[in-house]
């Protein structure tokens, strides 16, 4: 247990050792990659947060917020490229802040100028009166004990959101896919894409080209194709190298995302950026299907730092002595897809253009928590 010790978390009761044990277990699981993928990580984080908040005892809501931030920091440090845990913690923080803010709104609504509806703060920041003092004074009064049920309820809703994600996105598939269309998907690892296509196949007849996704997801691609075929969809597996060649016949490219970043770009499995680039060249629309919980408030300042490099043994067998000794082999596991290369994000709350993603970020997160 590094910096989030019993001492730093004084607001938890000493008897709640259980929760610390759970946090540590989760962190080790993250580090050992026993839990991977946005869906599983997001779900596990949400469940941990429920327990964390239930076990927390606080006299002032700020102490809960700082504890949560600390927890978020530790989770992110354990696996910096699993954005889902950071996202979940930030969502919960935004939820709490909104709850406090909501209470304050009712409290000081007749105090005058500054409590004009929270929407209009931005550009008037320059001119409005400073009312921070009132706000903090109000905060002091709210001891926040009564917030606990709200927070837990909010997290439960988040869990529901993740659980139903495939269902709500798949509901839109019929509108997006035409009869007799040829689709291409370079993301065989995405459950969301699978459900999206399956649901569409109930009403439409179309064919899907699945890229082989060498080297990391070849087996997954085969299993994915099998599932599609079982659902009655005409499925073709193509090698990654022929993505450009087939693109002229493709009607839509459907991709999944690991994380959607604030600028409208996304991080997804390797090979997807190539397919999106080819699609752009042929003016083929690219649909990215993703849940809102994958939305991250982070901006890709340094793309290389977001991309993980994986096991090179999958590219070249380690027993191949001549190769291993003389050739440098790389196996990046993710790709960064620029916002210009994606036409629309299909999320559980609707379809959005990449340039609108920043707005979704503002709606779901509070900007003070971007940096935990």
């Amino acid at each position, binding site marked *: 247990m590094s910096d989030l010790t019993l001492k730093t978390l004084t607001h938890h009761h000493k008897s709640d050792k259980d929760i610390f044990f759970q946090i540590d277990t989760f962190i080790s699981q993250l580090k050992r990659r026993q839990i991977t993928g946005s869906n599983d990580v997001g779900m596990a984080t949400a469940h941990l947060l429920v327990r964390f908040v239930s076990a927390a005892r606080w006299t002032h809501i700020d102490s809960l917020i700082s504890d949560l931030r600390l927890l978020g920091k530790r989770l992110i440090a354990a696996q910096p490229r699993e954005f889902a845990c950071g996202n979940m913690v930030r969502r919960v923080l935004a939820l709490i802040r909104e709850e406090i803010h909501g209470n304050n709104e009712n409290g000081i609504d007749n105090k005058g100028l500054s409590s004009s509806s929270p929407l209009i703060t931005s550009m008037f920041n320059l001119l409005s009166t400073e009312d921070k003092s009132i706000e903090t004074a109000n905060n002091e009064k709210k001891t926040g004990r009564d917030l606990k049920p709200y927070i837990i309820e909010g997290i439960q809703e988040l869990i529901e959101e993740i659980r139903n994600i495939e269902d709500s996105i798949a509901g839109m598939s019929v509108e997006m896919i035409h009869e007799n269309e040829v689709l291409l998907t370079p993301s065989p690892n995405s459950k969301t894409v699978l459900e999206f296509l399956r649901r569409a196949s109930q009403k439409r007849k179309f064919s899907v080209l699945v890229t082989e996704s060498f080297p990391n997801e070849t087996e997954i691609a085969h299993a994915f194709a099998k599932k599609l075929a079982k659902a009655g969809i005409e499925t073709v597996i193509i090698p990654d190298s022929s993505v450009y060649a087939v693109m002229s016949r493709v009607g839509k490219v459907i991709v999944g995302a690991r994380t959607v970043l604030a600028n409208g770009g996304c991080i997804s499995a390797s090979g997807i950026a190539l397919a999106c680039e080819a699609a752009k060249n042929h003016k083929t629309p690219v649909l990215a299907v993703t849940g809102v919980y994958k939305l991250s408030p982070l901006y890709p300042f340094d793309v290389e730092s977001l991309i993980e490099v994986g096991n090179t043994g999958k590219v070249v067998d380690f027993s191949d002595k001549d190769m291993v000794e003389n050739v440098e082999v790389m196996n990046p596991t993710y790709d960064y897809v620029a916002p210009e290369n994606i036409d629309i994000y299909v999320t559980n709350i609707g379809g959005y253009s990449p*340039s609108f993603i920043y707005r979704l970020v*503002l709606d779901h997160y509070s900007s003070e928590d971007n940096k935990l």
Partner: protein
Amino acid sequence: MASEQPATSQPSSSASSIMEVSESFDIKATYLKFLEDDKEMTMPVAAIETLVTLLGITQPSTSYELIKILENATQSLKKSVKNSISLSAGCDLFMRFVLRNIHKYGDWDSCKRHLVANGRLFVERAKTAREHIAENGLPFIRDDDVILVLSYSRTLHSLLLNASKKRIRFRVIVTESRPSNKGSLMAKVLREAGIPVSLVVDGMMGYVIDKVDKVFCGAEGVAESGGVINHIGTYQLAVLARNANKPLYVVAESHKFVRLFPLSPSDLPTEFPVQFSITEPEYELERSPRVDFTPHQYITALITDLGVLTPSGVSEELIKMWYD
């Protein structure tokens, strides 16, 4: 330039007393003095300060009078100053603020008192906005970057200074930016801060574009589409950056967002439109437009005090302010 307020060409007879007061008050001189006295002050803030000063002098007794005074003052200020885009953003913001909030105070008198009393506060806040930007923009500048910068901008200056203070090691290429030559000033202040700078002539943009990692510029005004109005040369730099696949970041305070929707640089008001002649006119190069318009599709992101926005975020902020 389309002005936002309905044209009130002649003051009505009931407002004649108001006009007397405001005539004795030289609005243009006050505005220019604010800019002169405080080099750190931006044009929109100076415009707001001017209007606040005017309110302090005129002592209007009804809210109608107050609005009338502000409308007339805004009109005459916009007319008298040549480069009025940036200041009109300030005037409009102030006007809108007054109109929205007059009813929120029980009596409008306390509204006026607040405005007059907080004159300095606005200036301070505008400076804080710049500090915010310096923080928001910090992660965009990374070790070993070569940054191409156009002309001088106070906001960009403070961002680069902040980055250098945080021990980020980067180099800057500054374009000279004729005819204002503000680029030389930028190069000077950055070198004083210990940042390695190369000052290049404007024609060298294309020569250096492959060597830079990202392009930064400031803004005089940010139009509703998210495009920017900035020192001449920004448009060509933006097109060049797009062609070379380099990100272009614009740093601007949110009080520079202005309700204009230019489609091309020629939609901006200018004293010196392009002219042809067979004889050599006097001061030909000095008499050329000082600002141009860069359409939004060339801009990667706007770094503002409200956060990092995509160009479409600008219209949303403006809509929030004007239509709800």
